[in-house]
């Protein structure tokens, strides 16, 4: 099999009438862990949505695991959306949510088999939420909700995990837990791509950093990407690097 998880060539995407991505070319190796950093409105979420096939391309192409992104191939990509995109008041249990990961494979009228249930239980154990299977999703903390959504992606048998700002609005301890969990999943051979503002975290635990502001400003090992010159090139004059409890975080001013 091909050893690239994503192969993006010259991708341009217009979103809400505005060019959100322009000429993006990118190879994400299988089994790598990539942090996507860039200013708000710089196309981080659009890139994730484009990789998932949720927004139409103006130009360029995307291959997933060396194949065209057709419906069946997309099942190999698990997605954890931003928290705001989900209705947390919905009456569903943690188990129900993770079982949703099996729905694309189930087809019509087939009830979940023993194997489907085992995949769901296994995914809940992997993310450390097996004890909460019966809880209503809205009763969980933000970090727990993110782990449940990650479990859904695992139950889907995704090889690639895309997480859009998984730690926004989540406390520091839960952030560490989520990133540790992602590292363990990477050790199991998953490819992980995360959008975030936390530079320290990317430097400490990720193989690669992608600095994105409509175009690819830099892409490579975090040490080489997070230089003052490149960060300034991505954020312009709005960048402010701050220290929060010993962690370096990139925020925008204005």
């Amino acid at each position: 099999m091909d050893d690239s998880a994503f192969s993006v060539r010259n991708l341009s995407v217009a979103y809400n009438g505005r060019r959100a991505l322009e000429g993006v070319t990118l190879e994400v190796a299988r089994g790598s862990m990539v942090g996507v950093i860039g200013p708000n409105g710089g196309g981080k979420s659009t890139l994730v949505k484009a990789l998932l096939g949720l927004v139409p391309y103006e130009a360029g192409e995307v291959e997933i695991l060396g194949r065209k992104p057709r419906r069946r191939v997309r099942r190999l990509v698990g997605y954890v959306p931003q928290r705001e995109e989900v209705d947390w008041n919905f009456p569903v249990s943690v188990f129900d949510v993770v079982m949703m990961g099996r729905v694309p494979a189930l087809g019509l009228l087939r009830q979940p088999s023993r194997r489907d249930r085992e995949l769901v239980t296994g995914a809940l154990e992997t993310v450390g939420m097996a004890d909460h299977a019966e809880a209503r999703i809205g009763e969980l903390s933000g970090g727990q909700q993110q782990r449940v959504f990650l479990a859904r992606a695992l139950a889907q048998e995704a090889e690639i995990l895309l997480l859009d700002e998984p730690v926004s609005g989540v406390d520091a301890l839960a952030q560490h837990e989520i990133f540790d969990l992602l590292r363990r999943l990477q050790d199991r051979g998953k490819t992980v791509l995360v959008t975030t503002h936390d530079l320290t975290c990317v430097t400490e635990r990720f193989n690669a950093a992608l600095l994105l502001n409509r175009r690819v400003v830099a892409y490579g090992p975090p040490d080489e990407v997070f230089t003052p010159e490149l960060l300034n090139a991505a954020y312009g004059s709005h960048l402010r690097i701050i220290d929060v409890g010993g962690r370096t975080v990139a925020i925008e001013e204005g």
Partner: protein
Amino acid sequence: MAGYLLEPLEFGFMQRGLIAAVLVAIACGILGSFVVLKGLAFIGDGLAHASFGGVALAFVLGANVYLGAFIFAMGTALGIGAISRRGRIRFDTAIGVLFSGTFAFGILVISRVEAYTVDLFGYLFGDVLSITAGDLWTIGILGALVLLVVFAFYRQLLFVAFDPTVAAASGLPAGALNYLLLGLLGVTIVTSIQAVGIVMVVALLVTPAATAYLITRRFHHMILASCAIGSLSAVLGIYLSYYAAAASGASIILVATAIFLVTLAVTGRVRKAASIPGPSH
């Protein structure tokens, strides 16, 4: 007591009315659960009103009123989608424009043929006790259709309702499933108009489901509770209308509203007593 319960059942119109109202309450309980959680109440009300144009036209032309109602409701649903998709007109504005237009068309048609107005009032305000054996068959078949389709697509519909973006990303045809839901909503509304009336269909969709939402924790429990509460409202409402000689549609809706208000008060008190904290972040 038993006499009071059994006496009305001696009449064929009461038997048909009760069966029809329970069938309708079950279809509405299922679709209403989606309507409440997805915030579709306004579009449901819009489709019901829009169907009146089809009812009036079919009535005058001597065609099947259910078919006429369904064609108008679905035409309006597609029209709403087409107008709002370009983004120049908001979704709820498009609903407001189209449903009042089609409703006005229905009023115009019946105002030209005064002789029929009394019968058509039954469609507007509901007259479940005038349902014929033929109507009952139509309601039964349409209700069974809704039940079967929701059962077949249950997991897909639940996934798309809860988390449309991830559902689409994982390869589900989210757009087609949304149209399916809208189509089912149209069928349910058409099935219900004779029982509770176009003006009040939305209440039978929303009120039992909203009550069920207050007392359940999982979606399939919400659907079951919603069907049960709707059926109870239908039966109590019909008995109420029989003994009080009151309009059947309005009686059913008022019973459902009373059940909702009591549940709201009781669950609010229970929650306060237990001082359950809100969802943490």
